[in-house]
């Protein structure tokens, strides 16, 4: 018994030393998508893609279990037919939903003249549940590159962080490591939105302290060499710091990360900055004096 315990301590100590070594080495060399990690991404991505196409109906089955209907239990012909029809209806609903989602995405991309590659989410997060990332089923072979912006029909989703031939990992805007250049609607002042405060909240920092940020103002991406300008991000809900050297505000994002399915990776930029036209038109015009010459 004592010998066994000592042996198990030895094993766990060796394994822990290996993990610490790995953490140190990987931390120093930085993120790499090559080597063993690239191989695992490729293999697992293929499996995930297959699994997703096979088990996509599981979600529907679970929702039909949550709303049970007694027809499934009765073994007569009518009940089976009924269940069949219901399933067909559900399938039809799913197809319609996908079509609507795709056309909304196209509409948004056309407004900004973005060239997009549509992709579907095939895996969410990581095993430890701490990463805000999704894996999508498009990769290098489809023309994607690292740092490209990912959108869905509501606006900004995140940026591509690593790639294999047929899959890509997208870091969502709410990941603590995510930091994306942003500007307020109607201005050219640079700021950035950072994640880390949960899926429904972003922190916006404006680097110009002379501008007064007001709740209700909307944000779009600033645009740079890597990523496109004008993608809707969200709406300012609360100004948190009005006195320091920079302004910070809480932002409610347009995209809800809980229901991500169809996304588009922006691979081509429009010839000119699309400005604010990608934002949905306002229901009520902003207060007088809102526009500056």
């Amino acid at each position: 018994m004592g010998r066994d315990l000592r042996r198990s301590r030895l094993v766990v100590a060796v394994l822990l030393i290996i993990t610490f070594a790995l953490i140190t080495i990987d931390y120093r060399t930085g993120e790499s998508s090559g080597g063993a990690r690239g191989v695992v991404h490729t293999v697992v991505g293929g499996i995930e893609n297959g699994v997703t196409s096979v088990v996509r109906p599981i979600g529907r089955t679970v929702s039909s279990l949550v709303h049970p209907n007694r027809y499934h239990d009765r073994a007569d012909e009518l009940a089976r037919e009924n269940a069949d029809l219901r399933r067909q209806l559900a399938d039809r609903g799913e197809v319609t939903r996908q079509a609507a989602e795709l056309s909304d995405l196209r509409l948004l991309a056309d407004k900004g003249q973005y060239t997009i590659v549509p992709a579907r989410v095939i895996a969410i997060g990581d095993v430890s549940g701490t990463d805000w990332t999704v894996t999508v089923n498009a990769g290098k072979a489809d023309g994607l590159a690292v740092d490209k912006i990912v959108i869905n029909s509501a606006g900004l989703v995140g940026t591509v962080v690593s790639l294999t031939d047929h899959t890509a990992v997208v870091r969502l805007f709410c990941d603590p490591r995510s930091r994306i250049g942003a500007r307020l609607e109607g201005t050219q002042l640079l700021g950035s939105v950072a994640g880390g405060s949960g899926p429904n909240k972003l922190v916006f920092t404006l680097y110009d302290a002379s501008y007064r940020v007001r709740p209700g103002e909307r944000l779009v991406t600033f645009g740079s060499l890597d990523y496109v300008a004008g993608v809707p991000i969200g709406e300012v809900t609360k100004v948190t710091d009005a006195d320091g050297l920079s302004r910070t505000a809480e932002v409610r994002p347009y995209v809800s990360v809980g229901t991500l399915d169809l996304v588009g990776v922006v691979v081509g930029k429009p010839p000119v900055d699309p400005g604010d036209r990608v934002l949905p038109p306002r229901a009520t015009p902003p207060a007088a004096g809102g526009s500056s010459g």
Partner: protein
Amino acid sequence: MSVQLFEPDREGEVHPLTLAALVLLLLTAAVTQVSVVARLPLPGGHPDLVLVLLATAALLEGPITGAVLGFVVGLFGDLMSTHVLGRSALVCCLLGYLVGLLADVTERSVLIALLVVSGAVAGGALANVAVAGLISDDAGAPGQAFLHALVAGLYAAVLTPFLFPALAAGVRRTRRVRWARRP
């Protein structure tokens, strides 16, 4: 009709075939977790399949198998992700070892196993967030982490009554194969 699910075995003995089968099971669970479980429309959050299976396996097989199993599946999870390599391996290895130490205490009772597994899953979820915060400053809001851990623990309590006997039966079967092969 015996209630005994599992013949007590000598502690610390590693059965290669059992270990291989468990590794395979956990790697499958890791892929299933991100591509199936994470997108199910379940209330509150999601069960953590990997931690539940790891804790159950460690409880059945003892600390050495638990630590090795946790290390392997954690490393696999790290390789699948974009965060620092070795982060989940550290948490899962420790979790497997510590739960494995309790293998004696539980005396093969499903009720105690249930408490241990749910506690381990909730603790593991919290440890993941804590280690993430320590290593690379990318932990989210603490309130959210606690909620996530609580939900994961509750789902573990729901799953364990099914998974524990099933896994125990599976482990027993792999042992029988090994013994049958022996001259």
